[in-house]
């Protein structure tokens, strides 16, 4: 932790010292007056019938509990240090079937196994620092991002600059992010060296085309450009353009593939893999998004978002989202929302038993299939404008509860409930 915090604190203090030498001694309002704390707890449940770990057929039942805390601290009058840290603890039926033979039930893609791959915890730690110029028209930022789960770890860093023009009516920003990730590949049990089981059923002897990946690194380089514009006293919009390159092991080593031209073998009801998914070494992504917000009245605001996405794997997607914050007096607000999404399939996507072993690339991950989805959401927020609820130096700012239901055309659905509580510390 100390090693991670040191560079960003050093950078923050360095920028602060340099900046303070340039500025005349005069009073400037702090960009952040008090320490702000945002806590977020979300609980996610999912179900579906197209688990990628079991080659496109099998239970996708999954639950995830994710507590997160974001602390923003003023650094001098011009800087903000933000520390975002959290956990994501999940239990996944499909992940449990990396080894379907370690439970008490007969092996089946429709039943969760009780082995250790059934659950995992992802931890993340993202500190960042933003420095504002004296006239508040230039903002520099630098960030680190570290995350770790059982078979995957990630280290990221980034920097960016934003400039405000035209009496702060126009903002232009450029950000660069780099992630250097490392897999610890966990292959399906039947593909591991030394696997033997006397209960295999099928014609002939079970063999497979599997060879372990020679590459376990995954690097991501992302360039983001954004421009925001105030259009009228009640309307503003922004445009986001990203260009992302990924290289390395972009396949998930635990996701099985069953070939059309290979015989089938089973243990109980569980079909043994012919291989794991194989995806190209490179992926280039080009998302373009826009937001438009309109203050309709004191009672209602329109928030809208649209995105077009395409990538070098043949996936293109459209996203449209609308949210209507409805104010109920000074303290309470409601947040109904709707989101529509559609995507085309990746060039390498095949449902179960549709790929052939001669193909160079293949996956049966239905997240890369063609589908549409709809999401309905509803939230309620209480804002404590006068900090009536406070304890010692900690004052409540707001508390919000949000629920969403997501439905995908290929059967997957999830529900997510999130509770966010924001505080200020004097």
């Amino acid at each position, binding site marked *: 932790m100390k090693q991670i915090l040191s560079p960003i604190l050093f950078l923050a203090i360095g920028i602060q010292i340099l900046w303070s030498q340039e500025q005349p001694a005069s009073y400037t309002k702090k960009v952040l007056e008090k320490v702000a704390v945002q806590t*977020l707890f979300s609980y*996610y449940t999912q179900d579906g019938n197209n688990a990628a770990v079991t080659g496109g057929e099998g239970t996708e039942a*999954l639950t*995830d509990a*994710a507590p997160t805390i974001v602390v923003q601290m003023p650094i001098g009058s011009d800087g903000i240090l933000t520390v975002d840290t959290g956990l*994501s603890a*999940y239990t*996944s039926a499909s992940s449990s079937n990396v080894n379907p033979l370690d439970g008490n039930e007969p092996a089946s893609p429709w039943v969760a196994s009780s082995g250790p791959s059934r659950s995992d915890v*992802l931890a993340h730690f993202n500190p960042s620092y933003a420095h504002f110029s004296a006239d508040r028209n230039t903002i520099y930022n630098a960030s680190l991002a570290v*995350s770790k789960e059982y078979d995957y770890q990630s280290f*990221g860093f980034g920097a960016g600059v934003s400039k405000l023009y*035209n009496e*702060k009516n126009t903002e232009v920003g450029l950000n660069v992010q780099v*992630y250097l*990730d490392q897999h610890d590949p966990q292959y399906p049990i039947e593909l591991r060296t030394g696997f033997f089981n006397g209960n295999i059923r099928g014609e002939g002897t079970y063999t497979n085309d599997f060879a372990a990946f020679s590459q376990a690194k995954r690097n*991501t380089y*992302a360039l*983001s450009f954004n421009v925001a*514009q*105030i*259009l*009228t*006293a*009640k309307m*503003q*919009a*922004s*445009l986001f*353009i*990203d260009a*992302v390159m990924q290289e390395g092991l972009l396949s*998930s080593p*635990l*996701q099985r593939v069953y070939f059309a031209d290979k015989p089938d073998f089973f243990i109980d009801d569980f079909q043994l893999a012919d291989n794991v998914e194989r995806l190209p070494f490179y992926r280039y992504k080009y*998302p*373009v998004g826009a*937001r438009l*917000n309109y*203050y309709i009245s004191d009672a209602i*605001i329109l928030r809208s978002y649209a*995105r*077009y*996405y395409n*990538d070098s794997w043949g*996936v293109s*997607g459209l996203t449209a989202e609308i*949210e209507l914050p409805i104010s109920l007096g000074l303290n309470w607000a409601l947040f109904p929302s709707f989101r529509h*999404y559609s*995507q085309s399939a990746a060039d390498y996507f095949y449902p179960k038993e549709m790929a052939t072993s001669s193909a160079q690339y293949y996956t049966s991950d239905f*997240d*890369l299939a063609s589908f549409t989805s709809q*999401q309905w959401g509803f*939230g309620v927020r209480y804002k404590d404008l006068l900090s009536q609820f406070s304890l010692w130096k900690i004052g409540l700012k707001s508390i*919000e509860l*949000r629920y969403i239901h*997501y439905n995908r055309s290929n059967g997957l659905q999830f529900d*997510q409930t*999130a509770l*966010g509580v*924001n505080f200020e510390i004097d």
Partner: protein
Amino acid sequence: MKYLFIVAVLLMFSSCVAVKEYEKVYINAEDMALSARGICKADISSHIYREGAAGANGGKMGGGCGCN
């Protein structure tokens, strides 16, 4: 489609006038911010896992396997 989308947004930006600071009471309302609301961070994370498309919304563009 992509180019049409960009042109439409740029045309929208080209017709604006400067709004003075004292006129920004509506623009500065908390729910008018041009970013995803804090509580929607959980939604964005779920979409990154369950959909092929990602990015251009202020969320992460890497740093996770997306395998569960």
